């Protein structure tokens, strides 16, 4: 754990602020979700991204609109930063027709064709082969595009991880593998799940250029992802980033979180991605005393609008239950 406390941020101010803004948007969105879960408005499994914001924000800012995204069940933040509206995400979690998937998917299955957001996958490791296939399709059709594939440290133990990395490297496919290493797969610490805990070495063994990045530092994430995406885009084959991060909250709302030390959580919180960037921007005069409260108020207002939208949403008719299973004949 390096202390990036007061490293200068060498990014244009607008970009820095936009990174900060998106991290705060995720944080407020997730906090609202936790509360709404308590009220029974959101149900099923709910996995929050609090603490890990720098990963989604730094990487997604390094991609462009044409790129494809494959995420996990801990993906509200990714969806939000990718450009899906907070309204459509929240309504989905309320099970409303106005949600991004008509209430069919819920928290773990957010999809959006318009932003090339390919889910929301609740099978650990399930997204990796899919990302390889998307990239294969792009390569075969000579489409200039990166497929960014997010997955956790836990997924690295699955066969799907190894098969996917091998295929991507073997066929030199434009995949950017983004491993969100938050040190735990549910209640299992990485040391008890992996014989080699430096996950970037696994990627390297498939001859994929790989790097470990401080996932609590959005600037470092952004810079690493920008370089990696450029390399993938230029046809140099897949890249792998291991983003070292931490989830502040339990795995899901069902998890009593008894398997980790409270001191460990507190230590990571001290390196929180939001105040890390805030402090650095303030120190170099890129953030005034008023900027943060403003940006925070905007984020809260956005979430509030999303909740109101979701509340007012309607329920899909059960007459439509069997729809969207196969293509529907044109009307």
């Amino acid at each position: 754990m390096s202390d990036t406390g007061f490293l200068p941020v060498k990014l244009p101010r607008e970009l820095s602020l936009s990174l900060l803004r998106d991290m705060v948007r995720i944080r407020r969105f997730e906090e609202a979700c936790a509360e709404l879960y308590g009220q029974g408005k959101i149900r099923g499994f709910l996995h929050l991204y609090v603490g890990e914001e720098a990963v989604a924000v730094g990487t997604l800012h390094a991609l462009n609109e044409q790129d494809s995204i494959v995420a996990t069940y801990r993906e509200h933040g990714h969806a939000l930063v990718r450009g899906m509206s907070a309204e459509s995400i929240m309504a989905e979690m309320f099970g409303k027709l106005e949600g991004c998937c008509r209430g069919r998917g819920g928290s773990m299955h957010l999809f959006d064709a318009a932003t090339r957001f390919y889910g929301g996958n609740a099978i650990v490791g399930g997204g990796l082969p899919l990302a390889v296939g998307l990239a294969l399709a792009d390569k075969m059709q000579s489409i200039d595009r990166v497929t960014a594939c997010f997955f956790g440290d836990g997924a690295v133990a699955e066969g799907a991880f190894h098969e996917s990395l091998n295929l991507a490297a073997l066929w030199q496919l434009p995949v950017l593998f983004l491993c969100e290493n938050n040190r735990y797969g549910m209640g299992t610490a990485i040391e008890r799940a992996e014989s080699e805990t430096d996950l970037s070495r696994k990627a390297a063994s498939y001859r994929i250029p790989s790097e470990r990045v401080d996932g609590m530092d959005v600037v470092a994430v952004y810079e690493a992802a920008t370089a990696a995406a450029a390399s993938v885009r230029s046809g140099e084959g897949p890249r792998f980033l291991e983003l070292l991060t931490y989830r502040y909250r339990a795995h899901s709302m069902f998890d009593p979180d008894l398997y980790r030390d409270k001191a460990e959580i507190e230590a990571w919180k001290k390196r929180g991605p939001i105040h890390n960037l805030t402090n650095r921007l303030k120190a170099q005069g890129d953030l005034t005393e008023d900027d943060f409260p403003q940006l925070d108020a905007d984020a809260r207002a956005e979430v509030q609008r999303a909740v109101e939208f979701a509340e007012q949403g309607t329920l899909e008719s059960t007459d439509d239950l069997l729809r969207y299973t196969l293509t529907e004949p044109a009307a």
Partner: protein
Amino acid sequence: MNTPTRISYREALREAHREALAKDPRVFLIGEDVGRYGGSYAVSKGLLEEFGPERIRDAPLSELGFVGAGIGAALGGMRPIVEVMTVNFSLLALDQIVNTAATLRHMSGGQFSVPVVIRMATGAGRQLAAQHSHSLEVWYAHVPGIKVLAPATIEDAHGMLSLALDDPDPTVIFEHALLYNLEGERPSSWPQIDIERAAVRRSGADVSLICYGGTLWKTLAAANTLASIGIEAEVIDLRVLRPLDEETILASVRRTHRAVVVDEGWKTCSLAAEIMALMAEQAFYDLDAPLSRVCSAEVPIPYAKHMEEAALPQPQRIVDSVKTMLGRG
């Protein structure tokens, strides 16, 4: 006087694990988060402290690997209990179960046996959507070389595990996720059970309702509703999904002359289809009405609560299908 104590399905399972672990040093539990976390459905909570990490063995997210390792350890003389979080994830291990566990005895001309027990949660009802809610029991019930159990009661949750461990062949046990919190009175001593026979959970002369696992309680609720309008349903809990207890099923339908099969699996190629085929083949002339079934709608299970409910067998649908069958609809 002793006040009766309550026990949950989950606790009954835990007690069965504890007894098996204490009795036989070859028994060990392996699975994701079974140790430190206490089990994703808290079945193994506390067992790590009692039996240690060698025997309550946390596995990484490697379903194919650790299920296969359980199969190998069984082949090698141990008595593993492998917990897979849910049937949905067991698909990652399907190869080892179907191509290895189920075939070794046969391929080796009877030389080898695989006494592994593989437990997994199944079923919907908690708004977990299309990758966490399916009932794929029939995928396993299709395969010769394994036994498939579905404990629906606290007694079966407790009793089936040790019988499965004693069985020299691979056994898959399905625990419906909604049953873990089921509570009942703790019997003063656990009843003797078997893993061969279906159980008649309620007697009745007018119609046989055949079900298993999570649908037992919905079916019993439907039977109560039917009783209030003068229809007496017999409720058969299959308990063993492979090999099926054909005798109990056929005896029931020969008494009642009508049958509705209730199955949380999808209708097409369901276990319900197999049971109906059995009755059509062997009890055709005993039937007074076409056979009927209540299954899940042919759609991945949706997230929204009202849609999920609409997709699953519900007591009202069971009642309606019986009424229609009896011309009382």
